[in-house]
């Protein structure tokens, strides 16, 4: 092969001859490249399709009344989801107040304090917790807090906090692990105590990424329905901020509206879905942007 390629006037290199075999290899190659491109196109198209349908169908029912009025009494048209908006804010807020600090502490434990073995086991536990189906989380909280009592905002928020916890903790760990050990060593070498080094050097350096994890956690639980079904779904149609009673929430409201028979209900469902999807996607985009910035600040090539 090489001999024939070396001589200038000799025959063309066999690999360059477009015989049937090479044509077939090239065809297979082109087909597979096309398939891969098509798959990516389909995935993006499905995302666009879902967002565009929600946008088109939701926009018509979205108005000021929808945002500021509670649901209309049975049999009447109009009304809104103000109770669900307030309820979701309350539930997600309470869940965040518990899950974000605890999650960040767990991230600190696994990245700064725990010996590698223990850290690895704790992270494994978090991964498993993250993999528990959310409906099972709902059953757990139902058995723990609702049986013998009643559905409440506390129970719903607790269920959401369980789902949020591993997301916040994992993200915190990953970004804390990126902080260069030279920074920590510099602090320790100057005689700064361990906890001061952690709180004044490590945490501020990693803050952007830790916020990202918190935002992703919020975005995730804001759209969760399953854990709320048994813990916080039989709610009043009035705006309520009392967490010892069940409060309405946007995902549960969408679920009810989607199962309803009338087009008016579906239209409201689309509008509520639009609201939810805008909030969730916005949080995701912001979180990703923050994470990119945090990484470049720490000095990791992204």
């Amino acid at each position: 092969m090489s001999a024939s390629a070396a001589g200038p006037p000799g025959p063309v290199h066999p690999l360059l001859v477009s015989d049937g075999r090479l044509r077939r290899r090239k065809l297979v190659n082109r087909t597979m490249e096309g398939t891969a491109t098509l798959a990516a196109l389909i995935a993006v198209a499905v995302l666009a399709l879902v967002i565009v349908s929600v946008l088109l169908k939701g926009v018509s029912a979205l108005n000021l009344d929808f945002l500021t009025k509670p649901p209309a009494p049975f049999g009447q048209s109009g009304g809104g989801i103000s109770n669900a908006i307030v309820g979701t804010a309350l539930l997600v807020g309470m869940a965040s107040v518990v899950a974000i600090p605890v999650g960040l502490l767990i991230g600190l434990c696994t990245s700064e304090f725990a010996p590698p073995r223990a850290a690895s086991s704790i992270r494994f536990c978090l991964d498993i917790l993250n993999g528990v189906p959310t409906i099972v989380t709902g059953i757990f909280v139902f058995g723990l807090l609702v049986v013998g009592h009643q559905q409440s905002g506390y129970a719903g928020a607790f269920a959401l906090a369980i789902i949020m916890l591993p997301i916040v903790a994992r993200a915190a760990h990953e970004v804390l692990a990126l902080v260069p050990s030279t920074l920590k060593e510099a602090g320790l070498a100057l005689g700064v105590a361990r906890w001061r080094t952690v709180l004044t050097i490590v945490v501020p350096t990693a803050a952007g990424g830790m916020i990202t994890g918190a935002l992703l956690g919020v975005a995730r639980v804001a759209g969760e329905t399953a854990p709320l079904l048994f813990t916080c779904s039989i709610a009043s149609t009035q705006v309520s901020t009392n967490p010892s009673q069940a409060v309405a929430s946007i995902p549960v409201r969408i679920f009810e509206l989607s199962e309803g028979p009338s087009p008016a209900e579906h239209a409201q469902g689309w509008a509520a879905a639009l609201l939810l999807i805008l909030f969730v996607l916005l949080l995701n985009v912001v979180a990703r942007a923050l994470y990119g910035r945090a990484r470049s600040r720490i000095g990791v090539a992204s």
Partner: protein
Amino acid sequence: MAASVPELNAGALRLTRARRKLGDRLGDPILRTLTWLAAAASVVLLALLVYKVFDQASESFSHFGLGFIGTREWNAVSGKFGAATFIYGTAVSAFGALLIAGPMAIAIALFLTELAPRAIRRPVATLVDLLAAIPSVVLGLWGILVLAPFVENQLEPALKSVLGWIPLFGGTASPFGLLPAILILTIMTVPIVAAITREVFATVPTELKEGAFALGATRWEMVRAVILPYARPGIVGGVLLGLGRALGEAIAVTQVIGDTAGIHASLFAPADTLASRVASEYQGAATTLQISSLAYLSAILLVFSLIANTIARLIVRRTTRRLQGGATAGAVADITEAEV
């Protein structure tokens, strides 16, 4: 003398030093204890969760025993309950979804790591990731109102006319059933599998790829000979993580699957899964035995998803450690992974 000035400073310094020392003596153990408490709480929480779910299932378990798993009947009136139909529905919908989502996610990952122009890689990857961020109830709403009519009027008649001789694609077309559930679960799992596969593909050493090209391989031959074998464990782990998600999805599935207990050969027929049955019936459960039987269903579901997730995490963890040996490259995957 100048000595008085340092002396004064030394006094002040000693005071702040003493104060700081006290703070340091207290601060270290306090922070350490707090973080350990938080970590311990998460482990206890997981154990408590497993215990509490099984505890709620105990009445049903003492009533039906392990025979519950193989019983096809689910009748609230006669008080006879069994999980077989739901296990069947869960298995078919989850495996069906992964059968489509697996190859598709691998193709997307290949596009993003090998084919796409550098400028569009990041944006397209973000868009695929965002697909995972759509709340399941919104996807379910879309499933009921957009996907279900399409499935009934276009997809199922078309499948039937071409593949109708296979029992899977026989039967009458209906808007709600296993097929739309499989499609919804596919949409939910593709971004999960694609994110992990993409990260694993990115760790394949450039020298190996270039070696294949230098031997005259086409791009596809390089993928088959180098990337896929190198990344196989990672792909398996990613698919298992997707499986864990597909098994446990309750809301979107209950919205499109038809909520009907029964085992049918046809994918067009309504069915039900473990998670979906729990979601749709818990509210209306009348007897404690029925509630306990639903808890039994969730206990079975919990065991399935624990197995899938444990194996997946072990594989993913082992391969990423083998492939990179550092924390940096996997961080993006870990964050998106944490999100799913």
